[in-house]
Structure formats: C-alpha cells, structure tokens
C-alpha cells in the first residue's frame, strides 16, 4: 500500500489527461486451419500415436518390400537346422557321406566277466574316436575288469548323481566292446556322455563322464543340392562353409522364420485391413441410407442390424467357414474375409446412422436446404465430410479386432491352416513346441501384439486429434 501511495504523490496533472484506448479489443490471433490440417497438427503432437504410425509404415514395408530383400523360400525346409533359435550365421564342416563304423573290440579281453565284483570301477580313458560332428559322435573307452557290457547316457548338463545321467542311448553287451556311436538328433550343443559299466545285467554305481561339443556338419552332396557350394571340385572334406542364415531361427520343420513371418504378415494384414475396409464401407452405406431416409425404412434396417449383432460372432465365423465348404485343415482366406464382412458391418452402420441423424438436424443442413441444395449435394458436401472423422477412427479400431479374429480362428485351427502361414497359424504351430523352442511362438505373437498395439494407439490418437466428442464408451 505504501508503494502505491508514494507513487501517487508523484502524480501530476498530465497523468489525469484522457487516454486513448484502442477500440479493437478482440482480434483473431490464430491462422485459420481446415479440420484435417488441425487434426494432423494435433496428431503430430501425440508422440505415442506418431510412433504407432511409423510402426505401421514399418510393418507395411516389412510385408511388401521384405520378401524382395529377404529372398528365402518360406516353404523350404532346412533339415540341418530344425527349430533353430535366432542366431548369427552358422558355419559347418563338409563331411563325406556317412560310413558305417564297426566300433572297437579289444581282442583278448574277456567278453563275460570272470568274476562278479561288488562294484565295478568306472572306465578310464573315455575319449572321442575322431572329430565329433553332428553327423556322428564316436566314443571309445578302456575296458574295465569285471564288466560284461556298458550303458551309454547323454545329458545336456553336467550330471550330479547317477540318477541324473540323462537320456539312455544304448550300450554294448560285452566287456570287450568299448565303443559307442551316437547319431541321435545331434545338434551343435554341449553334451555330457556317461559310460556306466554293467556286469551284464546290473549297472555299477561308478561311471565316467565326457564333455563333447559336436561341430555342425553337412555332407558335400547335401551342400551341393542346397546350393551352398557350386561344385564339389574345390571343396574338400573338413573345409568349412557357410550355412543358410536364419536370423529369426527356423520352425519345427526347418523353415526360415523370417520368411514365414513376412508371408504370414501378408495373410494377417490382408485380412486385418481389407476386411475392416470392406465392412466399414458397407456399414457406411447401410447406416447412411438408414439415417438419411429415416422413418420406417430406418427402423426396419436397424432392427435387422440388431439381429446380426446378436449372432455369436466367433461361432458364426466358424459356421460360415463350414458353409463355404471349407473342410478342416483347408486354408480359407477369402471365406474368412467374406464372413468378417458379413458379421462386422452393423457396428459401423449404427455409428454412421447416429452421426447422420445428428448432422441432419444441424442448422447448417437446414440452411443449405433453404438455399435449395439437392440431396446429392447435401450428402457429398456436408454429410460425408462430417462423418469422415468417426469413420476413420472406427476403421483404425476395426483393424486390430480383425487381426485378433484371424489369429484366434487360426489358432484353434478354424482359420488359415498350414502350410499357408499366417501369424495366427504360426502361433498355433509354435505353441506345441513352446517349452523347448519358445521363439517359434514368440515371434508371430510379438508381431500380432505390436500390430494391434500400434493400431490401437493410433486410433486413440486419432480420436483425440479429430474430436474430443468422438470419445465413445466402447
């Protein structure tokens, strides 16, 4: 208060002269933007929606341009690399065709034990006969006194006790047969082989362990037929060559996951985008007619839409599949598309009808009518542009639900069936080997989730950008 008073005391006569105040208090401070320009600016501010948009563009590139860059046949089976986890490019040594190995039998050593010992000691000198490869692992050990045979076990971790030796492979039935050849599903992993001597019947409590890591091997003929080498001339046995590269691993039939994901994306995104596009289009026409003409016509149309909504969606998706004569196990992309369109349109129709009914009563429509606008003009110039926002949002949200439907049906074996890959049918195959090879489920599931997520977030962003009033409750 004192501050004001001191300043007040300094006031002079001039201060009380009339001041010129500006007349135009209000002025437009923002440039005028069209509805879509404004929406685009708002969408750009929404970071999540923008990232989602980039992801969707990325997915489109993955689907369309991907197969041009990654020229691998999604149906080609790479039997050397079945259920491979994602990894860097692998190399293999070239070996000759498999040749029988007669094993090692010690002459002069008794095949039957001379006497039965309480405990037979563990064999010593356990080693591999030659370089272990995925073609074969050949084990040799020194004979043990009192042994009438040997059992061979294989484990993928180091055994702690005798109960922990792992997979029983087989063995020999004589004390002087001291070799074993393992050719059972060998992969490029570390194995722990255990040799347990027996007296011919019972196992000893002593055993010997050997850690073996076989090298990936490929026969020269195989390499030739698969195009890994051009000629057999300059490739000797023991050379290393590069195998096919599977960045995302392979599935249970040795097919390249990346190539299959790309081909699967075509099916999933085709259904996921084309079906909603078609049924939204149909919904717009249906709802538009109902809303624009109103009255009994509207009542009749909407009653029918109500009935269609009441049909249990997934059950009828399956019924239509049968109705189209698609047997179980047959792939039905187009029937699924048609079924989705037949069952999906009512939601859009209701929405558009509501919008049209609302817009029809707006003042500017009345004004345009008074000015002599034709039906045609009203629909093209006023009604369609004003419903576009709602329609765009509906379309964006319809995509994830269609993708979900495809995945769901394919997963229970009622949609796209093998060998045609779709993300859903790949999940169906992947879930069977989920425990041992999780990547076969993970990748298709990941792609479904990311796609659905991106479309959902984009839809949220569009809703906010276009109009806060559009925020519907479902």
């Amino acid at each position, binding site marked *: *208060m004192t501050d*004001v*008073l001191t*300043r*007040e005391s300094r*006031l002079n*006569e*001039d*201060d*009380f*002269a*009339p*001041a010129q*105040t*500006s*007349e135009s*208090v*209000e002025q437009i401070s923002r440039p005028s933007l069209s509805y879509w320009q404004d929406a685009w600016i708002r969408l750009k501010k929404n970071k999540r929606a923008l990232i989602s948009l980039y992801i969707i563009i990325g997915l489109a590139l993955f689907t369309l341009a991907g197969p041009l860059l990654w020229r691998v046949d999604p149906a080609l089976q790479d039997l050397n690399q079945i259920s491979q986890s994602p990894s860097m490019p692998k190399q293999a040594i070239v070996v000759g065709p498999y040749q029988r190995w007669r094993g090692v039998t010690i002459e002069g050593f008794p095949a039957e034990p001379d006497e039965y010992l309480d405990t037979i000691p563990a064999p010593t000198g356990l080693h591999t006969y030659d370089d272990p490869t995925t073609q074969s692992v050949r084990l040799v050990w020194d004979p043990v006194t009192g042994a009438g045979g040997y059992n061979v076990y294989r484990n993928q971790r180091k055994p702690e006790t005798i109960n922990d030796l792992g997979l029983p492979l087989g063995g020999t039935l004589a004390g002087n047969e001291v070799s074993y050849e393992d050719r059972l599903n060998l992969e490029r992993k570390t194995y722990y082989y255990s040799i347990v001597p027996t007296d011919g019947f019972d196992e000893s409590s002593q055993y010997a362990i050997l850690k073996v890591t076989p090298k990936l091997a490929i026969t020269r003929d195989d390499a030739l037929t698969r195009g890994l080498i051009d000629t057999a001339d300059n490739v000797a046995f023991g050379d290393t060559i590069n195998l096919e590269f599977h960045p995302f691993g392979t599935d249970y039939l040795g097919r390249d996951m990346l190539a299959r994901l790309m081909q699967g994306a075509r099916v999933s995104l085709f259904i996921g985008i084309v079906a909603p596009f078609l049924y939204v289009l149909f919904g717009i026409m249906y709802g538009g007619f109902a809303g624009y003409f109103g009255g009994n016509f509207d009542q009749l149309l909407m009653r029918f839409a109500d009935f269609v909504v009441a049909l249990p969606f997934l059950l009828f998706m399956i019924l239509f599949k049968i109705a189209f004569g698609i047997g179980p196990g047959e792939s039905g992309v187009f029937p699924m598309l048609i079924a989705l369109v037949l069952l999906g349109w009512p939601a859009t129709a209701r929405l558009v009808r509501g919008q049209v009914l609302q817009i029809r009563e707006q003042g500017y429509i009345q004004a345009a009518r008074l000015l002599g606008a034709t039906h045609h003009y009203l629909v093209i110039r006023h009604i369609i542009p004003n419903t576009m926002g709602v329609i765009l949002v509906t379309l964006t949200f319809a995509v994830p639900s269609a993708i979900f439907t495809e995945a769901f049906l394919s997963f229970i074996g009622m949609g796209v069936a093998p060998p045609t890959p779709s993300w859903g049918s790949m999940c169906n195959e992947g879930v069977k080997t989920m425990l041992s090879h999780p990547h076969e489920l993970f990748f298709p599931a990941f792609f479904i989730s990311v796609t659905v997520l991106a479309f959902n977030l984009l839809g949220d962003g569009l809703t906010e950008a276009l109009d806060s009033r559009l925020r519907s409750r479902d």
Partner: protein
Amino acid sequence: MSEHLLEVTNLGVQFATYGGEVKAVRGVDFYVDKGETLAIVGESGCGKSVTVQSLMGLIPMPPGKITSGSATLNGKEILGLPPKQANRFRGVEIGMIFQDPMTSLNPTMTIGDQISETLMVHRGFSYREAFTRSIELLERTRIPEASRRAKQYPFEFSGGMLQRAMIAQSLACNPAILIADEPTTALDVTIQAQILELMAELQRTEEMSIILITHDLAVVARMADRVAVMYAGQIVETGTVDEIFYESAHPYTVGLKEAMPSNRVSRDKALMPILGSPPDLFSPPKGCGYYARCPHAMKVCKHNLPPSFPISDTEHVARCWLQHEDAPKSDHITQAGR
C-alpha cells in the same frame, strides 16, 4: 479484526495451465457480518466463483493454488486446511449451493439420502433420524409431499425443486453462512423469483448470512445488503446496495448498470453494452484492469494500479483513479463517457 463473521483479506488464487499461470483472483478483501447478505457481482470469468470456491477448499489443487491471503471464520483461519479439518466447517458452518441443480446432485442417490448423509456425518444421527430430519428440511424449503419426494431421485425433480432440495441440503446443519453461487442462473425467471423469496425467508428465520454470487443486478437489488463488484480478479467497488446503485463510483459498475434491462419506459435510453472483453489474466495489466474498456480512461490508469479510495465516510470504497483528488471532477460518470 475479528468482529466480522467471515473476513477475507488479500486473497490471491492462480491456476497453472498449458498457456501459463492464470491469475484468477488478485488480492481480494471482503467481510460478511452475521445475518447480512453480501452480493458479489461481476461478469463471467471475473473470479467471483473462484473466490468463494477457494474459501470452501473446492479449487482442485493442482492446477489451482492459493498464492496469498487469509480467511477467518469467527476468528479462525479456514484457508488451505487439510480435508479433515476443512470438513469441520464445510457443510456445518458454511453451506453452499451451486449454479446448476440438475448436475449438482448425485443422480444415483435419493434426495433424502443425500441430505441425510450430511446429518449422519456431521451430527452423528442414525439413518432413520437423519431421514426424518431430511423430510422436515424439504418441507421447510416448501417441497410438497416431502416424505414421498425424499425417496425420489434427482431426475424425477424439476430444476426449481432440485434447487430447493439443494438449499434444504445446505441448511441441514444450520450453517452461519450460505454461499449461493449463481443459484438462479439455470432456472426459469418465474422459478428464480420463488427461489430468491425462499432464500430471503430462510435467512430471516435461520438468522444466517448469505454470500450471493451473481451477474444479475436485479437479483442484487432484491437480495443484497452490501455489494462487492468484481472485475478481472479484483474487487473494484464495495458499498451498501444503495451506494452501489445510486452513487456508483467506478465506471465498470456504471457499465453493468447501463447494460441491465429495466422495465422503465424510456425512449432515449437504449441498452448500453460494455464494449470489448476482459483483460487476459495470463498477464494481467499492471494498471487498472478496466483501462482498455473504460470510457473515462486516463494516462495514469494504464500503468498504475488504483488504490481503494473511500467515497464517503461509510464503507463505500472504489478502486478508480477518478476518485483521486487531482482527477477531473465530473458530476456524473456514465458509460458513454464525455
């Protein structure tokens, strides 16, 4: 200081928004005595609702923030209390009713239950006692068939009836002060009169004070003992109702008066709108808030905030440089100006 029932000094409230801080209330002082009606008048957005809502602790914080000032009720501070302490006076010593009765009552609870709730919480009544008392309260606000109405839901009431129920609810604990935030704005004109009459009658019988927030000078003339005129977050003029109407000392008060329709027949006197719009409260003007719209604006007004000048030896006060002793004297301040 504390001879007044409610005394507010130098209250300042601002809101944090994306555009910056909005200084909605900028140093407001007023008081209310027992049994009187204070009307706070001003156009939309001048900060009158924010003022009373901040007293009641109804400002959402954040974004709202009380930046300065104090408010004492019977000598005790009530500003910025935590909810538990605030609830000792909210609904007990100060009752409040709002602009739109249609949305101000819970749509899924019966009217009776909503009134009973207050009684059960503050008075420790049992549900049955509270409900009986609720019916009495509804009767007191002239709601016919109160016992049946108490069991009904808000959507079964008309707007006027709902405002009566709101009043009944706010009276439940016999408050010393009733804050009425534009109580008749959302109602039909005929209903308005009934509600105002009811409030005046209840004020007499209950001996309570009323703080009436309105932009309608007709309501002010009818109800108020004293008036505070608010503009751009400040009180620009206070005085008794007669002083404000017949000896208006601030050009804004005059502007409000001349913008008010009256039923007096006069040919030459058309309604005079106040041109322009209130200042931007993101960066309030340094000088008088009304400067840009004032027909009497002087050079001093632009950069110097006018202090409160006493107009008479009563409590009639105006924040306007025209009241300075050096200012040019004119007999009559009009909106049309010179």
